């Protein structure tokens, strides 16, 4: 009986460790930008799952601003811009270009859907 409990604890500990590891490994989401769109313009994530947004630009400097999570960065052509985020609330959260890029700039936006 005692032996079974020890094994169960070990298994339980191992499962918990895997779960913690999974929770701590950020999921990469790649988003590319060009006039006047993001691709993809809709991305999905799980509540509490650490994310790294890997942002690139195909043409010129764009912006990436997600006010609901207090995020903003420039996206500079020729380099990857990495933004870390752990969503702590579920819902749909818009992001947009906040570096004026021409006629169509106002339409350059996307959404992060965080599922509970």
């Amino acid at each position, binding site marked *: 009986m005692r032996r079974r409990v020890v094994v169960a604890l070990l298994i339980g500990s191992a499962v918990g460790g895997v779960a913690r590891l999974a929770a701590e490994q950020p999921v990469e989401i790649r988003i590319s930008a060009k006039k006047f769109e993001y691709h993809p313009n809709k991305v999905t994530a799980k509540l509490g799952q650490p994310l790294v947004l890997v942002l690139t630009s195909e043409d010129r*400097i764009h*912006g990436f*601003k997600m*006010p*609901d999570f207090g995020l903003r960065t*420039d996206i500079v052509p020729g380099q990857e811009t990495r933004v870390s985020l752990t969503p702590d609330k579920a819902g749909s959260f*818009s992001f*947009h270009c*906040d*570096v*004026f*890029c*021409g*006629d169509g*700039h*106002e*339409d350059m*936006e996307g959404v992060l859907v965080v599922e509970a």
Partner: protein
Amino acid sequence: MHHADRRDFLKLAGLAGVTFTAGLFPERQAAAQAGSDFHFVQFSDTHWGYSGPANPDAEHTLEKAVATVNGLSKQPDFIVFTGDLTHTTDDAKERRARMKRFREIVSALSVKNIRFMPGEHDASLDKGEAFKEFFGATHYTFDHKGVHFIVLDNVSDPGAKLGDEQLTWLAADLKQRKTDDRIVVLTHRPLFDLKPDWDWTTADGAKAIELLMPYQNVVVLYGHIHQENHHMTGHIAHHAAKSLIFPLPAPGSQPKRTPLPYDAAMPGLGTRDVAVAEKVSLVELPVTKG
């Protein structure tokens, strides 16, 4: 902060507009010096060069507004244009062609004392280079009958920043003012976070507001959002003007900031008369009289 009360609006008999009657200089006593009263007109967001379904009359709307203002029985002391004089284009040559044509159209204004400032459509793609060629500096001050006007540029930086250099310049200018001086700030974007996810903000606008806060009689007039909006940050009133190209939706009233459907009566377009006395009042002027 609070939104200005709609009850402060009164219909003015005989005027094709609505006046905003709240005292815009809250600490100013009703002791304006004789002869210091004046009024000026604000144009905003004319977007010359725009072509699209949001305004099939785009080639004529600005001319109609010029005619309306020329028809005012009491002509303004001066006229201000709070940005987006032209609609943006990637073509630098076309940008200059639009500015040239815009300047020709507004040269028909009877009042020749005109102050221009850029919007992001004019200045963000070339950091204000073409605008400066046609209209001069993008930030500056001027004084008129005891009122100090400060023009701020929050568009030449494509990231919607005033920038540290301009903020330092603003601080130096304000140091020369007394705390009860009457100050009118003219700019394109809202200095406060009106709707950040629609880009209706200035990245470092809070720093400008902080610099202005010690001054008791400050009013901010701006454009960018293509509609009237009245907002207070502490004692500082911020008033957005209508555009002359197409109206945009009220902040957050629809999922996207797409233009409102075209209405041939152009109810959402117009200019604004700003009367300055012991109080300042705003009268909205439709594109065409009647």
